[in-house]
């Protein structure tokens, strides 16, 4: 599958007399050929790769320069070294000819391993990013995530007149404080009992007068949504009063054979 295109390239595109055109290779659709321009003064070799598309009717039509590589090797160092370009293996011979072969010499194992490892790294990165984004979206937009339970229950607490009376407006909510002063993490616990999912949560609210701790538990109902099992606010000051906002533990729908703390 190789074809000499030297005269063609010389005539059509390359005017420099010092250019030597070597044998090139052509496949059905893409022809890759190489031109080596030797600069004898600086013992530098420039290798310019051309690729062209071959039409079935008129042979070579379009030739465009794709890559210009500058080799700082002297020519003798250059001999016998394999260079790879577009899946084409090139080899300079002693006589100054360039042997090109396409898929004759298999791509070395090192190269494939390198490509595979790059691909693996990219895939792993994409996968990790996807997982992270999935978690963020689930946390922010799902109605069963701790964050949305926190949001809705905080609204419920802030609307309750008893809570407003005892804490004083405005009321703000926050979670556990980390060392860096962030209070975004709301402590919660998902658990399962008798095949039903529960979510228990604790966070803090603070009004203009007092602080309080909100405890709540959600229970998954038949439709798969969360219902409050209980929701109460415990004030942090001395008599530690509790304000029970919701207590559905012993409702008809939610009743069990035995209540939990008597198990």
């Amino acid at each position, binding site marked *: 599958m190789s074809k000499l295109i030297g005269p063609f390239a010389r005539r059509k595109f390359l005017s420099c007399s010092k250019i030597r055109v070597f044998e090139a290779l052509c496949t059905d659709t893409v022809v890759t050929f190489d031109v080596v321009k030797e600069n004898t003064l600086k013992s530098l070799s420039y290798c310019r790769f051309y690729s062209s598309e071959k039409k079935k009717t008129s042979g070579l039509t379009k030739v465009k320069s794709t890559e210009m590589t500058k080799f700082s090797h002297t020519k003798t160092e250059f001999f016998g070294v394999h260079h790879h370009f577009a899946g084409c293996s090139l080899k300079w011979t002693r006589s100054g000819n360039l042997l090109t072969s396409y898929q004759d010499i298999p791509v070395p194992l090192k190269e494939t391993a390198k490509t595979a490892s790059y691909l693996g790294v990219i895939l792993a990165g994409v996968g990790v990013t996807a997982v992270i984004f999935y978690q963020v979206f689930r946390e922010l937009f799902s109605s069963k995530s701790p964050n949305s339970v926190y949001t809705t229950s905080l609204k419920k607490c802030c609307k309750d007149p008893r809570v407003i009376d005892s804490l004083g407006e405005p009321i703000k909510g926050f979670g*556990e*404080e*980390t*060392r860096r002063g962030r209070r975004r*993490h709301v*402590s*919660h*616990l998902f658990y399962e009992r008798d095949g039903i999912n529960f979510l*228990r*949560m*604790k966070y803090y609210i603070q009004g203009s007068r007092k602080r309080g*701790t909100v*405890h709540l538990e959600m229970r998954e109902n038949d439709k798969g949504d969360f219902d409050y099992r209980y929701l109460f606010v*415990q004030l942090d000051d*001395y*008599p*530690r009063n509790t304000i029970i906002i919701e207590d559905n533990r012993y409702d008809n729908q939610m009743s069990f054979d035995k209540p939990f703390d008597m198990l």
Partner: protein
Amino acid sequence: MESSTGDSSGAYAPSYSNRDPGMNVPVHSKQNLAPLSPYLNFDPVYLPQSQPEFIFPEGASRQRGRFELAFSQIGVSCMAGAAIGGIGGLYNGLRSTTLAGDYEQSEALNLFPLNRLLNYVMKQGSATANTLGVLAVMYSGFGVLLSWGRGSDDELNTLTAATATGLLYKSTAGVRKCGIGGAVGLGLASLYCLWTARDRLQGFRQEYSPA
């Protein structure tokens, strides 16, 4: 406080379990008034729940270690540097815009005075902030390393860290300047130490001087 003293790896650990004292207070009160013990004839709800209380060793005025303090120190010195440099830049900018020669130059550059002033402030502010911030980073780094290495946190650490900071900051400017930098650091640190320890020094003086 529990979470604020925990290390960063524990920050996400679930601090929520049935062992949490806030969740399960083993009293039955308020509603059915069953006290814990017959001798305890008041509602145990009025007992304060267990909250972490800390006793600091005597003389430990600083409640947090150097590492916790480091970021605040760096932030403060950064912001102070920005403020000082900004004011200095404002002064320089005002002085130079009112000078006639510079005014022509500013017109030639097609900069109107406010923009020019802003440039002065930004430039000098950021430069001073960077300098002070870098000094604070060096000082805190040395301080943290020393207190880790020696296992104690005292005046010697402060002095050494300040001297090392001065030496390092001027280390590329020649031996003489390097020495001067170290001396300045040592001097400032000694002044600081004398200031913080003036009560103790007062005690020494009264003890040892017959007057």
